[in-house]
């Protein structure tokens, strides 16, 4: 097994270069597979012996392939410092992901990637950082948080605002507990609909923004979730005084080839697979209301 070296000096949001043949999947072995919630699951993959391991950056995604079933883009939710284990958390919602939810330890999965742009973790050093995650949008943000927390002293206030549908839909409970206990990280979790035993916050994630401490003029925001949530989150951040040039969003479109050939994920002048999924908000602000074709 060899580890390809990441490109040096490429800047904060620079992502590793694509694989030599980005269209050919490489087989990876499932070392752990488990349910996170009722409809989400995590796969942890290790490379087959002798296979090249490519570094990835927080925010990138892989195309995961099940022979005879199909291929889907899934964000990487593991630690960029440990690229030998690929972690993918997703929702069982379509034909491919429903099959994936049933695979077990020892099964094989084809992997193409990593693809796409990265969260601006390094270039945010010195700033307050606000992460806003909605639903399964916490998964693509987890690598950025992990990376930031490994160098926590380089940042100002760090806040994670996380909204889920119900308490049962909260992802990564153990990770959230560990982050709360071990790091100088303010975490606020809220649910849209409370159940009987829930003692936490109730209300949409945007309603948390007015109550958390950060210095708007020196804050970088990273947002991931349903696009309607992204739009309203941006509005609330702008009300607090965070400039649109300091807001970054991760978008999701119908990505197929992942290298900007097929055009399935085209959004205005951008290909989400290649120019995104992480965009500076300013670049895509005018495109966010457009329906996917």
């Amino acid at each position, binding site marked *: 097994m060899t580890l390809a070296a990441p490109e040096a000096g490429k800047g904060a949001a620079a992502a590793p270069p694509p694989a030599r043949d980005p269209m050919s999947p490489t087989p990876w072995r499932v070392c752990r597979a488990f349910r996170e919630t009722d*409809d989400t699951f995590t796969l942890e993959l290790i490379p087959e012996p002798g296979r090249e391991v490519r570094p990835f950056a927080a925010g990138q995604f892989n195309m995961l392939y099940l022979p005879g079933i199909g291929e889907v883009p899934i964000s990487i939710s593991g630690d960029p410092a440990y690229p030998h284990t690929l972690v993918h958390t997703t929702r069982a919602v379509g034909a491919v992901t429903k099959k994936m939810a049933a695979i077990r330890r020892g099964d094989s999965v084809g992997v193409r990637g990593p693809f796409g742009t990265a969260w601006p973790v390094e270039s945010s050093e010195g700033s307050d950082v606000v992460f806003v995650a*909605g639903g399964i949008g916490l998964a693509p943000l987890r690598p950025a948080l992990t990376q930031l927390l490994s160098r926590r002293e380089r940042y100002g206030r760090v806040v994670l605002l996380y909204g889920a*549908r119900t308490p049962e839909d909260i992802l990564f409970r153990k990770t959230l507990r560990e982050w709360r206990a071990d790091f100088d990280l303010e975490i606020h979790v809220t649910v*849209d609909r409370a159940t009987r035993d829930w003692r936490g*916050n109730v209300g*949409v994630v945007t309603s948390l923004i007015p109550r958390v401490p950060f210095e708007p003029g020196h804050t970088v925001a990273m947002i991931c979730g349903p696009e309607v949530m992204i739009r309203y989150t941006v509005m609330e951040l702008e009300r607090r005084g965070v400039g649109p040039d300091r807001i970054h969003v991760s978008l999701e479109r119908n990505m197929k080839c992942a290298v900007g050939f097929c055009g399935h994920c085209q959004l205005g002048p951008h290909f989400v697979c290649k120019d995104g999924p992480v965009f500076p908000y300013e670049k895509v602000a005018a495109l966010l209301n457009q329906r996917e074709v």
Partner: protein
Amino acid sequence: METLEPLLAEHPFVRGMNQSQIETIAGCASNARFETGQYLFREGEEANQFYILRKGRIAIEAASPTRDPIVIHTYGDGEILGWSWLVPPYRWRFSGKALELTRVLMLDGKCLRGKCERDHDLGYELLKRFADILASRLDAARLQLIDMYDKGGRR
């Protein structure tokens, strides 16, 4: 006697108001604390206050005859709670319960309504701020209705 004006003046709610307006509002303010589980107000009661949460958490509940009250929203540090004092018939639409020891600035809405009738500039400043709060609450309520984390979505 020490007034609550300095405390009030620090809050973003009064940012942009002149000193005289802040003093007028502070004249209708008092400190209050609520123990865990204590109700600040109950649905249907006369609404003569609004609250600036200094520290703590409040749940807004809707009563249901067949089950426990439904928590529809929670508020935390620094937030403004209560607009029923501003809109006839001045009755609370929901109940507000402290989820932990909560300290608030309590503003007497009846007192403020009277002052706003006499001083329309003050009234306009207050209305602008409450319109902003109401717009945010409406946005939040609509987002809850959308059910944006619907199982059909990928995120």
